[in-house]
C-alpha cells in the first residue's frame, strides 16, 4: 500500500541533503495539489465525536456534492503533534478543529485569516454566534469560526435535594449559599455535596467571579492576586476543610478512572459542575437530575468549553474549506451536534430551537435553556499563544495543593506566579 509509493521528489532530495549535514531551511512549498483531493478535516475526541462529525459531513456532501471531506480523528493527547506534522510538512488540514490553544497557531502565522472569506460568504459571526463569535480572534483578526460552545453548568441530583428539602441551585446563589447546601448534602464517607473544584475551568470560574483574572490586561500572569488567592482557597477548603468535595483519594476509592463525571451518575456526589458531556453518562440513570446555571460571587462568571473550525495556511483549497465550514456551522448541520447528544452547538439559533431544548434522546425534563442563559456571563479565558505550556504549568504548580499537601492557596499561587512569569515573557 503505502510502501510502494516512495515519492522521491526534488524536495525529498533536499531533505536528504539536510540530513547529511547540509542544513537547509524547509524552503519551497510543494506544488499545488490537484483540487479533486478531498478536504482533510482534523478533529480530536472519541468515538461519539467521530460519529457526529461524520454525520455532519455526510449532510454537507449531500448538500454540496462538489465538496469531499475526509475526517481524521486524533486522540487529544497527540493532536498538537499530529497537526504540527501536517502543517509543517506543507499538508496542513484544510479544516482544523481548534480550541483554547488556537493562538499557538495564529501567533505563528499558521492559520488563515478568515475575515475576508467570511465577508464574501456573508457570514456574520456576531449574528450567528453572539459574543462567542469573536472568541477566536488574535490581534483583531478572526482565525476560527465557532463550532461548539457550552458553558459549565451545575448538575444536581434532584432526589437528594428534595430529600434534604434544599431548593434547586440558581444563578443567584452566593458562595455561602453553595457551601451551606453542600454541607447539608454531604454524608461523610458516602456522599459528597459537590464535585468539580480542581480542574482549571472549574476554579477559574470562581476566580473570575471574585474579580480576579489569570492573565491581566497587559498580558502578564496575575494568579497571585488577592482575588484569585481567595477563590482558590475557597475551592481548596471545600475539599480539605469542609470535606464536601471528594479528594483524589476519595475518588480513587470509588474505582479506577473515576472522577466527578462518573461519581455524579453513581450518586456519590450531589452536585457537579462541568461541561455538557456529563449528560452522556446520565441518559440511563434512575434518579432525577437537572442542570442549573453556575452560582455567583461578587459578580457572575463561568467558564465555557468550545471549539472552532479554522483553515491552515497551507491549505490549497481555501474557498472550498470555508464553504464547508460555513455549512458545518449553519443551523442545519449544527442541529446534528445536539441530535446526537455530542455537545452544545455554537449556533445561537440552534441553541434556542426545540431540537436543542427538547432533544429526542433526553428522557427526563432537563432545563436546556440554562446554556443560553449561562452564555450571557461566560468570561473570556486568556487564549495566549503559550496556552498548552500555561495549562501544564498550572496543573503542575497546583498538584500539591490539590493533594492537600500545600494547604495555603497564597503560597501555591505565589510559586505558580513565578513559574508563569518565567514562561510568559512576551506580554503585549
Amino acid at each position, binding site marked *: 500500500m503505502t510502501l510502494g509509493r516512495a515519492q522521491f521528489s526534488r524536495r525529498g532530495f533536499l531533505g*536528504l541533503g*539536510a*540530513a*547529511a*549535514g547540509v*542544513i537547509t*531551511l524547509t524552503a519551497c512549498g510543494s506544488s499545488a495539489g490537484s483540487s479533486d483531493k478531498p478536504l482533510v478535516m482534523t478533529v480530536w475526541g472519541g468515538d461519539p465525536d467521530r460519529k457526529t462529525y461524520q454525520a455532519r459531513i455526510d449532510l454537507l456532501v449531500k448538500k454540496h456534492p462538489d465538496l469531499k471531506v475526509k475526517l481524521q480523528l486524533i486522540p*487529544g*493527547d*497527540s493532536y*498538537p*503533534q499530529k497537526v*504540527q506534522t501536517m*502543517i*509543517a510538512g506543507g499538508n496542513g488540514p484544510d479544516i482544523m478543529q481548534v480550541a483554547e490553544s488556537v493562538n*499557538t497557531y495564529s501567533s*505563528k*502565522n*499558521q492559520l488563515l485569516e478568515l475575515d475576508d472569506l467570511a465577508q464574501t460568504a456573508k457570514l456574520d459571526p456576531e449574528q450567528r454566534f453572539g459574543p462567542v463569535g469573536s472568541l477566536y480572534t488574535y490581534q483583531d483578526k478572526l482565525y476560527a469560526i465557532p463550532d461548539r460552545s457550552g458553558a459549565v453548568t451545575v448538575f444536581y441530583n434532584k432526589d437528594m435535594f428534595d430529600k434534604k428539602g434544599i431548593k434547586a441551585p440558581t444563578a443567584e446563589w452566593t458562595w455561602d449559599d453553595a457551601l451551606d447546601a453542600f454541607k447539608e448534602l454531604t454524608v461523610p464517607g458516602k456522599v459528597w455535596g459537590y464535585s468539580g473544584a480542581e480542574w482549571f475551568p472549574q476554579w477559574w470560574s470562581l476566580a473570575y467571579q471574585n474579580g480576579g483574572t489569570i492573565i491581566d490586561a497587559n498580558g502578564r500572569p496575575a494568579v497571585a492576586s488577592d482575588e484569585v488567592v481567595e477563590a482558590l482557597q475557597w475551592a481548596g477548603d471545600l475539599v480539605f476543610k469542609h470535606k464536601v468535595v471528594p479528594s*483524589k*483519594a476519595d475518588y*480513587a*476509592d470509588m*474505582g*479506577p*478512572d473515576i472522577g466527578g463525571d462518573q461519581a455524579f451518575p453513581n450518586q456519590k456526589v450531589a452536585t457537579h459542575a462541568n461541561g455538557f458531556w456529563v449528560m452522556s453518562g446520565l441518559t440511563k440513570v434512575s434518579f432525577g437530575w437537572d442542570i442549573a446555571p453556575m452560582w455567583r460571587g461578587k459578580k457572575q462568571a463561568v467558564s465555557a468549553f468550545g471549539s472552532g473550525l479554522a483553515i491552515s495556511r497551507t491549505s490549497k483549497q481555501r474557498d472550498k474549506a470555508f464553504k464547508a465550514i460555513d455549512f458545518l456551522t449553519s443551523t442545519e448541520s449544527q442541529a446534528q451536534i445536539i441530535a446526537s447528544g455530542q455537545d452544545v452547538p455554537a449556533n445561537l439559533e440552534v441553541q434556542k430551537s426545540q431540537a436543542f431544548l427538547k432533544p429526542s434522546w433526553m428522557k427526563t425534563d432537563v432545563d436546556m435553556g440554562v446554556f443560553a442563559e449561562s452564555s450571557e456571563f461566560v468570561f473570556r479565558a486568556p487564549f495566549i499563544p*503559550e496556552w*498548552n*505550556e500555561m495549562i*501544564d504549568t498550572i*496543573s*503542575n504548580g497546583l*498538584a*500539591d495543593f*490539590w*493533594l492537600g*499537601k500545600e494547604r495555603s492557596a497564597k503560597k501555591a499561587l505565589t510559586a505558580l506566579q513565578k*513559574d508563569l512569569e*518565567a514562561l510568559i515573557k512576551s506580554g503585549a
Partner: protein
Amino acid sequence: MATSTAPKAAPGAAEKPASPKPRKQKLSTRRRREALSFYLFISPWVIGFLVFLLGPMIASIYYSLTDWDSFNPPKWVGFDNYVKLLTDDPVFWKALWNTFYYAAISVPLGLVLGLWLANLLNKQVRARKLFRTLIYLPTLIPLVATAMIFRMVLAPNGPINDFFGLFGLSGPNWLLDGPWVKPALILMSAWGAGAATVLLLAAMKGIPRELYEAAEVDGASATRQFWSITLPHLTPIIFFNLIMGLINAFQIFSQVYILIPKGKNPAGYDAAQTMVPLLFDQAFSYYRMGYASAISWLLFLVILVFTVIAFRTTRRWVFYETEVK
C-alpha cells in the same frame, strides 16, 4: 572469553590468504577487488550512518542552538537553550531528578532480583524449566501491553492494593499520588527482572564445577560459595546489564506516556515526568524544536557520564576470567 576470541579470529582470517603467494600483480588486483567489495558490502551501513545518524546529529546540534517552532525559519540563539535549561527551568531539573530516581532504583533492583532468582534456579530444582518460563514470561510482553496491564494492576482497587487489604492495610493511590507514581514505575520494571535472570543463569552454568567442589571440600557453606565463586564470575555480565539497564532507564518513555496519560492524569504525569517525555512535550506539543534538541544533548551527556563512571570503576569490581588464566 569472547574478548579473547574476537581479536584472535580477525588476524587469523587475515593471515591465511597471504600464504600461497602467487604472482604479485594478481595479488594486488585481488586486494583491490577485495577492498572494493568491502566498501560495497558495508555501504548500507555507511549510508545509514550518514543519513540516519551523523547527519541528524549535526542537524540536532544546530537546532539546539536555535529557537525554532518548526513552522517558521529557525532563529539562531547560541547557547540560550542550554543556559535556560540549566539555570531557569525547574521542570527540567525535576525531570532529571525523576529520571535519576527511576534509574538509580529500578536498575540495581532488577539486577539483584534477577541474580537472586537465577541463583535459586541454578540449584537442582524440579520443574526448573517451568519456573524459568514463568519468571521469563513477563519480559516477553511488549511494553505497551505491560503498561496497560499495570494500569489495572495498580488501580486503587486492583490486585496489589487487594493484597495489602489482606493485612488490613490500605494501599496507596499508585498512579495519582505524587510520591507513589515513581515507585509504581519501578514496580512495573521489577516485573521484568526475569530478563536478567535468564542471562545470569546461562552464565552461571558456565562456571567450572570444580571450583565449587574444591570449596565444598574446604567446608564452605552455600552462601559462602555464592559470594566467593558465583558472584565474582558473574561480574562481567552484571556489569553489562548494569550499563545497558542504565542507558535504557534514562530513556524511559512509553511506560510514562501510557501508564500515566497526561490528559487524564496530569498530576500523576507531572510527578513522574522524566527526560524523554519532557523532550517529547517540548518538541511536539509546545513546538520548541530547538529547546527539545538541547534536552536531547543534555540527556546524552548524562548517559555518557554514567557510562564512563561505570567503565572507570570496572577494574575494581569486574572480574574477567582471562585475568585469572
